[in-house]
């Protein structure tokens, strides 16, 4: 869930998608500005964090990068549970990876948090000559399912940061009525926020 304090939003984001679609590459491009031609496979999961400054808020993404193979699918709920956002990644040169992406969308619709901001990323957009999934096909699917869609390239950095920025913009802003447990009133939080304000 996105947690909100002043204009700071902490948002858990999870990357899902077929193996080799480029999940880790997208994260590394976004977090470190790097691209490795032979990015090693993710075993288990990897965790990254990156902060984005928008006009109205600062969004700190806590990013879970998961292993893609079907075999490790049973671990995925652990990572997407409680996520405020998800990027479902497929490889535009692989029809199978697009089908896999659709399965992930279905799973998130069933199991995930209903207010989750979900993006569909058609990665490896630099490999135009090997394209197997058309832009139109993917866009139509995304529209049908209310997903935010972009074709990306971790290699050339096209649309990578844009995807994360767009997710950050779509994250729900302050929703004061959302605390079901009620509000605990005390002096300390105010003092703390004051203290953090002058430190930052």
């Amino acid at each position, binding site marked *: 869930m996105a947690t909100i304090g002043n204009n700071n939003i902490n948002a858990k984001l999870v990357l899902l998608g077929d*193996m*080799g679609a480029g999940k880790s590459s997208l994260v590394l491009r976004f977090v470190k500005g790097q691209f490795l*031609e*032979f*990015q*090693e*496979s993710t*075993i*288990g*999961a*990897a*965790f*990254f*964090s990156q902060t984005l400054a928008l006009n109205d808020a600062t969004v700190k993404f*806590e990013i*879970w990068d998961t*292993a*893609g*193979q079907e*075999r*490790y699918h*049973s*671990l995925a709920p*652990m990572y997407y549970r409680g996520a405020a956002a998800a990027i479902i990644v497929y490889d535009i040169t692989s029809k*199978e990876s697009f089908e896999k992406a659709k399965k992930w969308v279905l799973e998130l619709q069933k199991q995930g948090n209903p207010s989750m901001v979900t993006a569909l990323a058609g990665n490896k957009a630099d490999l135009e000559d090997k394209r197997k999934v058309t832009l139109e096909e993917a866009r139509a699917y995304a529209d049908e399912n209310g997903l935010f869609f972009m074709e990306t390239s971790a290699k050339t950095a096209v649309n990578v940061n844009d995807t994360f920025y767009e997710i950050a913009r779509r994250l729900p802003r302050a929703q004061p009525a959302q605390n079901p447990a009620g509000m605990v009133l005390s002096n300390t939080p105010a003092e703390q926020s004051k203290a953090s304000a002058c430190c930052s």
Partner: protein
Amino acid sequence: MELHDLCDDPYYAASQRQGSASNLSCDSDQMRDVNEFELVYSKENVAIHPSQYASERIIGRLRIIKQSSSLFLTWIPYRTASNLVGTTGRNLSSSVSEKDMNLYTIKSVPLTNIHSIRRHIPTIGWQYIIVILSSGLAFPPLYFYNGGVREFFAILKQHVFIVRSADDANVFRLNDFQDSLQKSLSSLELPRALSVANGATLHHSPSAVSAIDNSERENGIASAGVSTASKHSGKKKYKVPDPAHDLSVQVLEKFSLVTKLARDATTQIFREIQDTRSPLRDKKLQSSPFPVTTVSQLDYRTNNNTRTKPDDIEGIPVDSKFVRSFVRGKKMKLPLTREEWRTFLGREGRIVDSTTLRKRIFYGGMENDLRKEVWKFLLGSYDYDSTFAEREYLDSVKKSEYESLKSQWKSISETQARRFTKFRERKCLIEKDVVRTDRSIPYYEGDGNPNVTILRDILLTYSFYNFDLGYCQGMSDLLSPVLFVMRDESDAFWSFVALMERLGPNFNRDQNGMHTQLFALMKLVELLDHPLHDYFEKADCLNYFFCFRWILIQFKREFKYKEIMQLWEVLWTHHLSEHFHLYICVAILKTHREKIIGEEMDFDSILKFVNGLSGNIDLDAVISYAEALCITAGEHGAACIPPVMQPRWHEQRMENKAITTSESVDMWKTWKHRFSLVVNYGWGRQFCLRILNGRKKYS
């Protein structure tokens, strides 16, 4: 061949030198004094088990002696063949050395220094006691082979004030005086000996300190505090010290090598036993009669005043940091050389003593050019008992077997492949992974590298050889160093097959294999570092998923390429434990416990931190530390680890055999019983239930 154990350590050496120095300093009068003692109690056949193997034992005599109105506890190993040759007739000189015996010897501990003694009288098996000193140090369990623990306490009662612990009927406290007057009177009796146990006086023992100083200069480790103190006292080396004082220091010194760890383990075991009895875990914890951890370990809960504070042991080198740095500092040997390897080969090429060989490899690995041959033994492709000729024959048979396996998929035509989705999918998965496996290693780098193709071919052949398991991410990581070493497709394939026989369960689709491993890891951390376990519990991290990668691909991503080959051969020796990789996990976690706890890391941060350790782990130090932990945990550690889950393809075979299956259920039940499993931790319990439910199908 030289044995590598705690005694090889500079600190042990220091205590040995210290011992000889104090002998020098003893004048004849004192020698006479030492001989004038009254025997209060003596018990034959009392043993220490230095390792988890009951076959490795040191048998000796336990005594209580009275000397100038003070009582001392001693345990001296027999200097006879019985300690060097086990009852089974197996020559144990390889495992129990003279040095081991010296290390474990309890020369003379004043009873006033003993905090408590725990007795353990099982209906089946050996009775034993664990002696815990006021400083919090514990001696390893003393097994009474001929029984008689009750008699021991009966005699003890006649001579010292003993109180049974209110928390545990099997714990007896000595020197536990409610009355402060009595306490101070008591401490007046043996002020110096007492002070030794209570700390800070190590610095006052000149010989001990200068010995440590020497070893420090040689090894450049240990705390600066001790070092400074020693410089001041170095000149007084031969000044006559108090014998009781010196003996205690000597005992403490030796045991500080092992007992901090042993104490942690034993106290935690006690707590565990208490925990299983009472749901009021925290209450028990607070009233635990044992100083559970050292001050530094308790830093994160310093606000918790209700907890029994450990004795003030500042200034004495038994602090956890000290012990850790000591254990870490232990040097591995140089890798096994070809010359050395030849000495293990008997006539016709049989391995004469595989135990010693495995032990040798455990401490230092082997030179790279030996790996191709020796790995096949470690992985079980070759029998230790095979001859050169048999192995050569085996290789050629296996080579043609590999070729025929490979031809199964090689012969699939494109038209056939179009109608064979499973095959296409697998090939695609494998191809995606091999091109990104260790491409920075020269052996695999560059476009169109033929070795990458060999990786693919082996993995594809394996997925036909073991069609049920198929290809799983992580396998390419496991195969890469194997092919690098074997430099031959067939050899690499069969070695990989042998490796997967061990690791296969980790790749089960339902992740049960991994869950079992992570669960065992949780139990081990609980046993070996209870505060860290408590922290993980509080932080909701008991699923240990941050160690998933470590275990699944056996630390492949955590170490440099050269190092991983050494670590793997160490793991494959199965010296000490076939689950040594779990102790490696505990060792790494414990190495960073202060940071994890101090920074109050949550699950995300721990995962990030743990992944970030990649390439920054000191291999030799971690192996040494894990070794110490494994020895400390002993059979209690082994009991943490459930019987290895069978890989799926084995299970399917078992479904057809009712007896075998029920046997496996029994195995599981036995383990569960042994551990009297009380799983109160979220998914841990669910997981266990899941396994049990899953198993019910078969029973």
